């Protein structure tokens, strides 16, 4: 909207109408996109009678957290009725080390590829980049064999290894593209000052990396926490991550289908990723665009 229109009263009205129209459209879209989230949250707070009796869109009569408690600590997953709690901690013990490891290794690889250019560095980078396009399904069989060889099948450690290795391609890409924007002269100056490969990384490169670390952590956490395929393929029973457990919880029905518990379980499963986005989301875009503008 141009500023000049605000000085002309006759045009003011039409501008206002345009604004109203715009807001209405935006509001409609917002409602449309928020509707599923509303249904999930609303249903999780109702009891079964209310779900059966009322409409899908009706507000719950009261804030009833019974379904949440049930999903967290009582619901049956297969034959064990422990709720999602142990699986939640499985996912935490899987995601935290896997995110940390893949981010750190990606940073180190990106640093080596940009600041210690060796012959064929670009070819190596191209090959690593290729890893981003390898679908999960392709690596399942060789990965299962490898895990069997090492002897960590059906453990959280196995999943940590799988996610770290699979995530490396992405984290390397992030860090490599970020580090090419850091001037090489910094590394040269530090070399002359007497710092070695790891000292330069720790003292100069890492302190410049928070924006891209945030990107890598969000990306990796979302990928690893939300992963279903690797979890379902390489673990059974007690070692399952929460995504697999939630699926099993929904599929385990004894008599009545408990929609409220299913919804609560879905929300519990999604909560950590939501939390990471809310806390660090604004750094995400900042990190992705960092370095693209000089200055």
């Amino acid at each position, binding site marked *: 909207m141009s500023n000049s229109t605000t000085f002309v009263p006759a045009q003011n009205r039409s501008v206002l109408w345009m604004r109203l129209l715009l807001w209405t459209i935006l509001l409609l879209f917002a409602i449309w996109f928020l509707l599923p989230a509303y249904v999930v949250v609303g249903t999780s707070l109702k009891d079964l009678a209310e779900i059966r009796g009322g409409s899908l869109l009706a507000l719950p009569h009261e804030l009833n957290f019974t379904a949440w408690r049930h999903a967290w600590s009582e619901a049956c997953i297969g034959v064990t009725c422990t709720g999602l709690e142990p699986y939640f901690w499985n996912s935490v013990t899987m995601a935290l080390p896997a995110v940390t490891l893949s981010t750190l290794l990606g940073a180190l690889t990106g640093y080596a590829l940009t600041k210690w250019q060796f012959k064929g560095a670009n070819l190596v980078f191209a090959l690593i980049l290729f890893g981003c396009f390898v679908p999960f399904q392709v690596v399942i069989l060789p990965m299962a064999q490898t895990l069997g060889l090492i002897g960590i099948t059906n453990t959280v450690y196995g999943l940590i290894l799988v996610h770290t290795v699979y995530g490396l391609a992405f984290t390397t890409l992030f860090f490599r593209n970020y580090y090419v924007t850091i*001037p090489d*002269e*910094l590394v*040269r*100056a*530090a*070399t*002359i*000052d*007497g*710092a070695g490969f790891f*000292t330069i990384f720790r*003292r*100069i490169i890492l*302190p*410049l990396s928070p924006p891209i670390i945030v990107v890598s952590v969000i990306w990796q956490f979302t990928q690893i926490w939300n992963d279903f395929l690797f979890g379902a393929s390489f673990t059974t029973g007690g070692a399952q991550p929460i995504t697999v457990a939630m699926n099993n919880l929904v599929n385990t029905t004894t008599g009545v289908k408990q929609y409220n518990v299913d919804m609560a379980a879905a929300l519990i499963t999604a909560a950590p990723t939501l939390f990471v986005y809310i806390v660090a989301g604004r750094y995400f875009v900042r990190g992705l665009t960092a370095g693209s503008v000089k200055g």
Partner: protein
Amino acid sequence: MASLTIKNAVKRYGNVEVLKGVDIDLEDGEFLVLLGASGCGKSTLLNMIAGLETVTEGEISIGDRVINDVHPKDRDIAMVFQSYALYPNMTVGKNIAFGLEMRGVPKPEREAAVFEVAKMLQMDHLLDRKPSQLSGGQRQRVAMGRALVRRPEVFLFDEPLSNLDAKLRLEMRTEIKRLHKRLNATMVYVTHDQIEALTLADRIAILKDGEVQQLASPAEIYDLPVNMFVAGLVGSPPMNFIATKVSRTEKGFGAEIYVRAHGAEHPILLDLTDHSTSVAPFVGRDIVIGLRPEAITQAGVGSVETQSFASEVDVTEATGADTLCILNWNGKEVMARVSSGYAQIIEGTMEFAVDMSRASLFDPDTETRLD
């Protein structure tokens, strides 16, 4: 402090030869400027001295120690970079102290050294700031401080002033000169700015296509350039090149040129008798006469020896102290430097004096100096 010796240094990237056997011998405390256009290999040579590039062939030594395979940190050198390369996450004080810290100097000693250097560069009040909070000139000082604090044998400068504005550049140039005098350290300075080279250097090495064209004092480079490349590179405005033919005269030797004056071309015989020995074999052959603008000036003020004749002034450019007059000789532009008070009254044709004793003569085929 130590001497620096570069013996037949060659640098190759695959089949591309960037440096083709450079020999430079630098005495203890000497200030060498590597001058050349971009891509001439001057920065490569500096990086080879620093140890940031490997030496393909040849030998580089500091003092009597060959440093070809010595790690940069053990070469006892310090380098100032064009972009300053300050560590953005560290304060000024930590930036300066980093090199000492890496060498395991204890903290109290480090702090004392940093403070001393900061005082010397008049930036002791900036020690707690981050580089992003500094102006360009201040950053430049920090970069110098970082080099100074370690008291290295050899200082290396990679175009350190090219990111500064004109006024600051002059200030820092003087500062570097003063620093050199005070420390009496061996310094190697890379630049493409010929004025920086002339003002700073004890000796200048002019590089072109990976070869040293001339290695000499600024005065010698300016007055006795070994070839037309050097003559054209150093000096602003550049040397005039006048293509002509050598002929015998009753006095000795001369060269005829056509000078436009009063609306017509007039033949003028430039006297080459001062250069008899070098032009004698060239009688009847082509030659290039190189004349600095200041060797062509207003008539009536020079020595008796100078030759004077009328020439039409095409355009004048006032530079303050002097005015440059653009003349037309042999159909080409020739620049003369005239004192500005004199130039204001001239219009059209005026008398110019030419000091042929200061002329440089070149063979047009090889472009080298005739001596």
